[in-house]
């Protein structure tokens, strides 16, 4: 029975590892490969940490299991090893993890700076957000500047509005202004690895560079009330021409006076 317990403590980390190994094949992994430039950096760091952590996990859990195995197979009557510790070992297992942790920490700094420090935002986007994304309970209200003008912090005549769908150019750096109309929300785009809280009272610039045109889920990741899970929206990445064509179409729709439509209908 003693050996059973030692095996028990060896067995479950193996199950855990096995589950992790089969996870990508079963679609229990990232929703897709990262599709933004900084997403690659984030995933790279993730896998770096994952390797370090897996090695540590296997090592420590194996050592723990082995310690149990030693106890389970001990011949009766032999006394336990009387030891108060080892100064040498303590030094080793303080310094080695310390180096690893400092190393992990340092490798992150640059990526963090690229993502968040305004001074390091790409020059092309710094001054020109493409849209304002205003979160509210429980949807995303988007405001684009009137084509040919710049986005102002307050609404302007001719601004274009839409809901739950943001059109941004792909393959070039893009910036949006994130705000909230009521409580806190968070702008979370899993496939782009982008997440930023929307804080009441602040306008927060968020930049990313989407690598492929397509649709990306946008959802809320900060508890914003009972309908938190309902904040389902999407980002549509398109060629810059596609985006401006969309905005032209949106402008036409927004100025709809009901007459044009009726005329074209009667022509048919």
């Amino acid at each position, binding site marked *: *029975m003693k050996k059973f317990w030692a095996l028990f403590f060896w067995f*479950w*980390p193996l*199950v855990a590892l096995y*589950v992790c190994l089969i996870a990508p094949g079963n679609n229990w992994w*990232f*929703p897709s490969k990262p599709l933004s430039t900084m997403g690659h*950096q*984030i995933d790279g760091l*993730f896998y770096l*940490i*994952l390797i370090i*952590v897996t090695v*540590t*996990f296997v090592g*420590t859990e194996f050592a*723990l299991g082995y*310690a149990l195995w030693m*106890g*389970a197979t001990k011949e009766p009557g032999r*006394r*336990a090893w*009387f*030891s*108060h*510790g*080892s100064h040498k*070992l303590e030094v080793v*297992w303080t310094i080695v*993890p*310390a180096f690893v*942790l400092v190393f992990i*920490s340092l490798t*992150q*700094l640059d*990526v*963090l*700076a690229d993502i*968040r*420090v305004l001074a390091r935002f790409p020059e092309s986007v710094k001054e020109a957000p493409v849209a304002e994304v205003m979160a509210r*309970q429980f949807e995303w209200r988007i405001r684009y500047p009137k084509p040919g003008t710049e986005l102002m912090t307050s609404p302007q005549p001719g601004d274009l509005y839409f809901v739950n769908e943001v059109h941004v150019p792909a393959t070039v750096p893009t910036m949006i202004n994130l705000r909230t109309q*009521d*409580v*806190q929300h*968070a702008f979370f785009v*899993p496939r782009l690895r982008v*997440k930023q*809280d929307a*804080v*009441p*009272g602040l306008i*927060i610039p968020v930049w990313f560079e989407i690598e492929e045109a397509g649709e990306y*889920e946008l*959802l*809320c990741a*900060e*508890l914003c009330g*009972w309908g*938190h*899970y309902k904040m389902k929206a999407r980002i549509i990445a398109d060629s810059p021409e596609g985006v401006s064509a969309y905005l032209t179409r949106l402008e036409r729709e927004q100025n709809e006076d009901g007459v044009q439509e009726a005329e074209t209908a009667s022509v048919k």
Partner: protein
Amino acid sequence: MATITPALETHGHEHEHAHGHHEQTFIQKYVFSTDHKVIGIQFLITTLLMLMVGGALALAVRWQLAFPWENMPIVGKLFGVFQGEGGQISPEFYTMLFTMHASVMIFLVIIPVLAGAFGNFLIPLQIGADDMAFPVLNMLSYWFMWPAIFCFGYSFIAGGATAGPANGWTSYPVLSDIASASPSSGEAQTWWLFGLTLVGVSSMMGSVNYMTTIINMRAPGMTLFRMPLTIWSMFITAILQAFALPVLTAAGFMLVFDRLHTLIPTSIHSVFFVPAGLVVNNAAPTVGGGQPLLWQHLFWFYSHPAVYIMLLPAMGMVSDMLACMCRKPVFGYKPMVYSMAAIAGLGFIVWGHHMFTSGMNPALGMTFMTSTMMIALPSAIKVFNWIGTIWDGDIQFNAVFLNCAAFVALFIVGGLSGIFMAAVPVDIYFHDTYFIVAHFHYVLFGATLFGVFAGVQFWFPKMFGRQMHDGVQKVHFVLTFIGMNGTFFPMHLLGIAGMPRRYADPYLHGYLEHLLPMNQFMTISAIIMGFAQFLLLGNFFYSMFYGKKVGRNPWGANGLEWSAPSPPGHGNFDVPPVCYRGPYEYSGPESEALGQDFILQTTAPPAGVKVASAHH
């Protein structure tokens, strides 16, 4: 530092004094008792019952995640409102469920079971004192739990049957601040805040008491470095509480002032956390100049140290129990103490890692990332030392040991998953996904609760003079361990798959739809784990009355508590204890000389043998 001889006299006096209390009524003895042991047991039973409440709430959460919008058993019928919906709960009710699950588990289970139950019971016994320094304050610290439980309980119904507090246990403004922002944000949230404040009052009374007792009331010979690690951990925890809690209390009062008008319409209505111009629930724009991030800073300034308040005592207790069950000294006693102190110290400068996506200045984020990385170091040292403690020991494979080993095994997982989140860029992706849910459940359930399970069984003989049934505890261990991993390990994968936490219906989002079967598996595991706890409760209460009777030192342990009668009478020790050595001298030459593998801290060395120096 205490010395050996002069204290003996005082002790005799105290002892006599203690005997003068024989005519205590039932109420004095068991209800409004000032005896630290009774208070400790009161805390323990209260928290075990609250554990079941919190667990029931968790199962309701899991039900919704596995079978979204299906008729929820019991709850669906409990409130008339859901009957019209076919027992389908409403989203705000779901929000309430996870909020109250966290609140109950953190404030009414984990914190009070460690500091309140074990702290109270063990501190005087392990340092050889006859009671706490301030017994009445101690009694009050328990009885302030009840108004807190009342406030939390009343908050369930204060706003109506479906609108309990539902702003997350972190209670972030503006959601928790403006009454119309969420259904529960009216009266319910205010009562919840009162509950939080009262828990703080209770903890604070405990913490000053522990510090004073540990500093002033140690038995002769009980130098600081002869204290068991349990006492060290309680001492460090008490310091953490005392320094961090005022900040939370201040923040709590600010939020109460912001929302007191929900209870008393004519009262103060401040806007500490509300900026101007918000349009909430389609009302007129707010006025004010508050800052919601302020709450996050203040809240985490307490709540991050609180994470260690919820862990350190379990670490100390597990060190004690592992040494005893492996019949070996703790590997690296002083590094263990220093690493706990380091965790506590660093614990004060890492709160910002909860706010990496909050819009805080990125320069701060870098600082917090580095300090957070560094806090993994003392945790790693502790893990290595625990493994060193088990290494080549004479292991007693009972449920106490198994729970302790599980503590180490699961703490490794919880600690390692923390590294992902300490790294800001990676955390940007993982923040508020199920990855973090997995992480803190591995630490708080996997580590702390398994430590508590072990501790309950280990010190049960000292509490009641009887032993818990080991076989039942082993079954409980296996079921809980399997259920726990089955529930929480897949959460890592859910987090990697990008499933946000606090979603009543994640499957609304196409890229999460395929995770439903996994959630169902997790819910089944959780149900197994939940029902396994009845084994613990049953064993606990059965053994209280019918367990095998045992003597003073059933485990062959070294601590001072084991030299007292089981259960100890009022005043604890029949022979005033004098401490001659450290707490972990298992299997050493001294014990060998006595023909056993342990030697009580109180066992006097044979005449002519010099007492080991305090600072070896």
